[in-house]
């Protein structure tokens, strides 16, 4: 049975009109498809990380009541809000806005927090401090969405080829 199969296979190869040397792999479209698919998967993961970026819903922002009882100036505080007669600093959303990705190399993307105000405290949220448990959003976002990212990658790669 084995010898028959071998014979059949060898005859099939020898009788074919094309040899393997005639096949040429065009690398450029393949690389473009990979880059596109990787970019799409990265954007998908980034879009999933932004909603889980920590913001304590139960804790009010910084209290900025003035001693004279007047409303705080908008030039000093970011979008101050009044809740129950008290003034609070508005939520800037800087960390959410700072989630970004960049290409390290054509086939390597990096997701993280851009350099800026939020970058200073992002690591404390991600890894925790002495008084706060880690509120991971980057690692958790990537881990939780690996399967979804692979689906996006596969779909984009197939459509780009």
């Amino acid at each position, binding site marked *: 049975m084995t010898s028959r199969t071998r014979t059949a296979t060898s005859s099939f190869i020898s009788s074919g009109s094309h040899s393997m040397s005639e096949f040429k792999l065009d690398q450029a479209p393949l690389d473009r498809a990979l880059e596109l698919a990787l970019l799409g998967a990265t954007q998908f993961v980034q879009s999933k990380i932004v909603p889980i970026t920590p913001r304590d819903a139960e804790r009010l922002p910084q209290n900025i009541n003035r001693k004279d009882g007047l409303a705080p100036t908008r030039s000093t505080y970011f979008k101050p809000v009044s809740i129950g007669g008290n003034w609070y600093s508005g939520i800037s959303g800087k960390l959410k806005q700072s989630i970004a990705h960049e290409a390290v190399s054509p086939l390597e993307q990096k997701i993280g927090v851009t350099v800026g105000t939020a970058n200073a405290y992002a690591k404390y949220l991600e890894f*925790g401090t*002495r008084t706060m448990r880690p509120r991971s959003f980057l690692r958790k976002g990537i881990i939780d969405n690996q399967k979804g990212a692979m689906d996006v990658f596969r779909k984009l790669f197939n459509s780009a080829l």
Partner: protein
Amino acid sequence: MIDLKAHIYSLLAADETIADLVGSNIHIFSDDSEQMENFVDRLPQITYARLALVPSITGVRNEIFQISAWSDNPKGAEELSQEIVRLFNRTSDTTYRACNVSTVNDSFDHNTKSFGIHVTAKFTIYDPAY
């Protein structure tokens, strides 16, 4: 359902090298953070917390834990984190099928002047009850 948190505690507490370094200072991060009082007095210490639980297929799940090594000096934190990696990386036992360390990250707490090295470990668990 297998309680991996308790199992990790037992593994850390049973390891002689780690016990030499931290004594009984192994803590689970909690939300009320009450246990984090006297943080500096308890250095070096280990804290750990679950980051994510990802169901894989029926009866199998992946749990991601962050195990942090804290010390008042970088060398102590490094030494402790290496012991954590040695204890968990590429291991398996009767409770979990596999454990692999994915990342190791450093941080510094300015208030307490303490160094933290955070080991992210992925545990794969076979748990028919899950």
